[in-house]
């Protein structure tokens, strides 16, 4: 991707993710999350991973965050509940974030020029992804689906608990 475009998008992504953690209104935080996920999808497109980008938007931006918003709206948080997290928690979280950022930076500085390789035709497309998913990664893929099924069954059981 062209460097200035990347810089603008990267700054926007960082700004959107800062809204997620810093804004005191949970609805704005959720919207910041949508913007972050959408911008990440743009990066995936720039990396020729169209399939991942589409799934990112459909699953995360289009469904999961909508459910977040749904819950936030139903709870209708009052102003006092919207305050920032207690100070010690913020300090710990900020330290963790800085540590992670430092690790990434150290890794980049250690090997600034990673070797590049040309990708073949169809890279990042549906067929290439599906081929890997159903050959090399069949077991993790199926196990993940079982895990999701367990979660669904759990939700149904919890929802039915009070029924006579």
């Amino acid at each position: 991707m062209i460097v200035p475009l990347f810089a603008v998008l990267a700054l926007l992504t960082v700004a959107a993710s800062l809204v997620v953690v810093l804004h005191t209104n949970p609805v704005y935080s959720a919207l910041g999350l949508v913007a972050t996920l959408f911008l990440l999808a743009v990066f995936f497109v720039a990396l020729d991973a169209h399939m991942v980008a589409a799934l990112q938007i459909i699953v995360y931006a289009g469904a999961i965050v909508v459910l977040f918003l749904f819950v936030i709206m139903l709870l209708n948080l009052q102003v006092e509940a919207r305050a920032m997290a207690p100070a010690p928690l913020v300090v710990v979280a900020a330290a963790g974030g800085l540590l992670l950022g430092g690790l990434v930076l150290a890794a980049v500085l250690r090997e600034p020029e990673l070797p590049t390789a040309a990708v073949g035709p169809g890279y990042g497309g549906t067929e290439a992804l599906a081929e890997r998913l159903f050959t090399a990664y069949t077991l993790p893929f199926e196990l993940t689906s079982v895990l999701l099924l367990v979660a669904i069954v759990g939700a149904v059981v919890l929802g039915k608990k009070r029924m006579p």
Partner: protein
Amino acid sequence: MGIEVAIAAAKAGFILFLALQVMGLGVFFERKVSAVIQDRIGANRASILGFAGLGLVNTLVADPIKFLLKEDIRPAGADRLLHTLAPVLSVLPALAAFAVMPFGDVLELEGRTINLQAAALNVGILYVLAMASLGVYGVVLAGWASNSRWSLLGGIRGSAQMISYEIAMGLALIGVVLTYDTLDLQEMARRQGELVWGWLPAWGVLYQPLAFVVFLVAGIAESKRIPFDLPESESELVSGYFTEYSGAKHLMFMMADFVEVVLVAALAATLFFGGWQVPWLGREGFAFPWGGQVPLPSIAVAALQVTAFMVKVILLTFFQIVVRWTLPRFRYDQLMRLGWKGLLPLALANVVLTAAVLLVTGSAP
């Protein structure tokens, strides 16, 4: 380089133009078809120099002007930014989804072969679903940001409904994707030019009738119109999620509704009715199954295909509007029952059936 950009811009502009034209026609149908169905005359008053055009002036000139000139009211305690953003967020994704819609095969012009599709994406149909799934934010935010009970209830209903029916819609489309072995809408449209038994155009509705029914019902539900207009539901919620909107913003919500109707029509035309296919029209002209040949230049073929696509989209838009003025509104439990216990199992059965048939026959038809 310059001419490539110009061509891309022309294609993008053309598909947007097409979508908005059919949308305007949809608004006109809405007023006049409802009048015919209810045995009244309908909009006929506004005229320019005595020309009323069967109410066209009313619906396409007078109505928008009226909306644009109205006062823009924002209720006390409403969230200023999100209240303004919501109508934009509801109309933009629906328009963006048209980017991958093919409106013709190829146009040979001065040595260039132009693919008549604004964006040829490998994941075409998933892109449409992604954009459609973003449309829900307009509804949710309008409901929340208006600081009104009616709006909030409408927004919550809307988000639950759209998420529920998206699943049935996506599963119905899986059957189509299996049949054509591609996600690219242009490729799907091309595959529908093949002939069954040497004469019958292999349109998607032949192979996937069940998917078509599920898709159309889920599509109407996605556009939140009667019989699925519970988020709006004027007898209970005043006007649902856009109760607190007036003027241009209200017009944008209306526009989003109709753009979604046209989007569903365009998708249904592309997936199930051959898209831009005209029966027996190939790139060199007509080749009739009874032996006749009519060679045509590329530009004429392209023009015929674009016209065919538009006619199909208009007919399907018209059909949706007739449905809207024919059926009563569902109750909320009926809506959820239809989505989860009716359409979802049907769509799943369709996927299993299609997969089984493909496994036995060994390949896509």
